[in-house]
């Protein structure tokens, strides 16, 4: 069992101790001084070129110096196992094992080659047990820690772990300087000022390469008989710098970083178009959720542009919507709905808001331009006509509501249209809604269909004059009457003038809701008789002359002749009504005097 000769250069004295290898070195010394007593086995691992072999050999030297008789074997695992196998093949296994077991110090290098070799591992375990039972010391060196040796036997692992596992790191700058100096000294050479430092600064993969570079430098000094200067170092070592190329790249990178840092504005200032857009729209109060969601996904410029263009289109639409609402109704409460009008993701809702405002601001149905009172061929002697004229004089102040009834063809519609036109002419500021029962129902149905009843209501509530012809058509409808009822109340509260025309008196309209009827009856209900019955109306007027005052009227109907009163009784249900529905129009003028 020969093993390898120990390299005489590798001693503890020539081993430069630094922070990277202090523990490994101390453990190695200890093992060399007292084999088999402390760290058994000692497992040293490190990347290649950092001093494993040096340390392993140094242990051998040191141990032999202390005990020249020591039975010591230094070998690589590879060769060692070859010997084992050869002995086995030669049938000398037991002899070999016996000899092995007498080894006092076994130094095995490159044990990482145990990887995957189960048979070898088996043998190692066997003779190990034999050796350690006699107190033999084992020192192993590997380029990786035991657990990282592929397919290593658990039993070996546990044996390794029973001792000490130490690693050797890469030397730090100071240690490298020390190594360079020590090596130069060993060669009996003096390095120029700054040379060890420059060498130590040059990036080498490991100490072996550092030594290679130093060797080259020392060779130049020896052969040329001069001292190499610090300036020459980079040029001289460049050949050894294959592994140092990484540094070349890092230098290059450093420079590029510098250029780019100057070239590209600071990240805070440079934003991608989407981030820019987000900030800009936010500043304008728009919601940018859609952009934020798109930002991580959009990475090609075309995609980014699409996202931005679409967003802008949405914003444009929102602006149009807002502008239109503003134009339609500058004080529209909808304008306060920034949550919708500034959110490109809620365009449909914004459209809805606009739709509402549009509905609300639709012009109210206007009376047909003809006829007017001037073109009307109705006698102003007729009570209904005079009532209409009085309403036109001061809409909302008298006879409110004015309810005109009469048979079809009596001229109710033309009277209403003329009234509407008259008011429009004299009070252009008053919004007039002029429509008939079927029209009202149709409008309502349309609003219902479009789900815009609210806005439709609001639209009609703006009216200050409501003229509704053919009210009787609504009798029997529920929803239309209900809407009319609410509209009625709302307009009346607002002081708007209400004028209705129907085929009959409110109480005679079948299907007219009570709440509507009472309200209608609370106003002035006046008949526009058919052509043939007009004489009666005129006759009534004659009876009334001379006109009694309103007070007289209230005080005693006696002023009026009995048959007429009886007639009136048939018309009016109460004295109170008589006051309001008194048919003598000239008497109503009295009210103005008060």
């Amino acid at each position: 069992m020969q093993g390898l000769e120990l390299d005489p250069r590798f001693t503890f004295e020539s081993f430069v101790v630094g922070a990277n290898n202090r523990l490994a070195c101390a453990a190695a010394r200890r093992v060399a001084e007292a084999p088999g007593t402390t760290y058994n086995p000692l497992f040293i691992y490190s990347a290649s070129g950092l001093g494993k072999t040096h340390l392993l050999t140094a242990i051998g030297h040191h141990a032999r110096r202390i005990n020249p008789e020591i039975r010591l074997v230094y070998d690589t695992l590879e060769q060692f196992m070859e010997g084992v196998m050869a002995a086995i093949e030669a049938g000398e296994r037991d002899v070999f094992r016996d000899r092995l077991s007498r080894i006092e110090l076994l130094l095995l290098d490159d044990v990482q080659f145990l990887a995957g070799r189960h048979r070898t591992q088996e043998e190692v375990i066997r003779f190990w047990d034999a050796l350690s039972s006699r107190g033999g010391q084992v020192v192993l060196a590997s380029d990786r820690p035991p657990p990282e040796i592929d397919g290593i036997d658990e039993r070996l692992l546990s044996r390794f772990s029973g001792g000490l596992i130490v690693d050797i790191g890469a030397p730090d700058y100071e240690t490298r300087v020390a190594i360079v100096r020590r090596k130069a000294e060993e060669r009996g050479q003096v390095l120029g000022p700054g040379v060890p430092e420059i060498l130590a600064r040059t990036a080498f993969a490991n100490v072996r390469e550092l030594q290679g570079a130093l060797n080259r430098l020392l060779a130049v000094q020896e052969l040329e008989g001069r001292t190499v200067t610090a300036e020459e170092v980079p040029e001289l070592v460049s050949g050894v710098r294959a592994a140092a190329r990484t540094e070349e790249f890092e230098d290059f990178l450093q420079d590029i970083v510098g250029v780019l840092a100057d070239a590209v504005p600071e990240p805070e200032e440079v934003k991608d178009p989407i981030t820019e857009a987000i900030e800009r729209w936010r500043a304008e109060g728009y919601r940018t959720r859609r952009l934020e969601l798109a930002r991580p996904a959009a990475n090609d410029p075309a995609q980014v542009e699409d996202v931005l263009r679409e967003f802008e289109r949405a914003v444009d639409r929102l602006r149009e919507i807002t502008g239109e609402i503003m134009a339609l109704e500058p004080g529209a409460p909808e304008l306060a709905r920034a949550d919708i009008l500034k959110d490109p993701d809620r365009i449909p809702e914004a459209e809805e808001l606009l739709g509402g405002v549009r509905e609300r601001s639709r012009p109210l149905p206007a009376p047909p331009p003809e006829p007017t009172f001037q073109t009307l061929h109705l006698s102003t002697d007729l009570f209904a006509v005079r009532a209409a004229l009085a309403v036109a004089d001061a809409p909302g102040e008298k006879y409110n509501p004015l309810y005109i009834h009469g048979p079809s063809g009596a001229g109710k519609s033309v009277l209403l249209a003329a009234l509407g036109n008259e008011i429009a002419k004299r009070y252009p500021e008053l919004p007039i809604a002029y429509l008939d029962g079927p029209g009202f129902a149709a409008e309502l149905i349309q609003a219902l269909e479009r789900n815009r009843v609210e806005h439709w209501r609001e639209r009609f509530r703006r009216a200050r004059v409501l003229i509704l012809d053919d009210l009787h058509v609504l009798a029997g409808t529920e929803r239309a009457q209900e809407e009319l009822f609410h509209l009625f109340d709302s307009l009346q509260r607002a002081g708007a003038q209400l004028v209705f025309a129907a085929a009959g008196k409110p109480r005679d309209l079948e299907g007219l809701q009570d709440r509507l009827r009472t309200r209608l009856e609370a106003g002035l209900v006046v008949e526009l008789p058919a052509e043939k019955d007009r004489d009666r109306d005129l006759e009534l007027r004659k009876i009334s002359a001379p006109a009694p005052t309103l007070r007289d009227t209230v005080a005693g109907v006696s002023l009026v002749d009995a048959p007429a009163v009886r007639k009136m009784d048939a018309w009016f249900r109460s004295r109170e009504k008589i006051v309001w529905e008194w048919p003598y129009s000239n008497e109503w003028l009295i009210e103005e005097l008060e």
Partner: protein
Amino acid sequence: MPLVNYSTREITCKIVYYGPGRSGKTTNLQYIHASVPESRKGRMVSLATETDRTLFFDFLPLDLGSISGFRTRLQLYTVPGQVYYNATRKLVLRGADGVVFVADSQPELLEENIDSLCNLHENLLEQDFDLQSLPVVIQYNKRDLPGVMPIDELEDALNFRGVPSFPAKAVSGEGVFDTLRAISERVLKALSAKYQQPLVPDAAR
């Protein structure tokens, strides 16, 4: 044009090594490839003939990491130098952000250098490159060979536009990174000139 993606914060620059056959373009890339830490380089793709001439192109992606908040990548391409591969050269040249012209310093190859340079100009013009603003550097390679032309003669013959030039021994790596550094810096500076303005697409402006 360098691809600047602001949403993923990436800059990608394409640098093409141009030059006559066997001038050392692939060697440049191989040296760079060997020098770059594993984490920084992608797989070098090389399509070569049996005689080791570049058939299609070499491609070496380099990841320079995050610079000023941008993930910066260099894509190094070589073109096949042989005259008859012009279609491939045009293809590789498309979208280049910078060109390294690798010249062979040997006197007997001067003609080939000039031909290749003319070919480069033709192809650039054909693809509507702005020759004034496209970053170009020249590398006088093979300085390690005996009997090479002096640099000033090469300059007279090839560098009439006075672009930065570098002597190199691509085999040992000398001058390789100087060249790469110069072209990269120029490309990135050109990029910044382009992007110094607010980076907002026209539509949003």
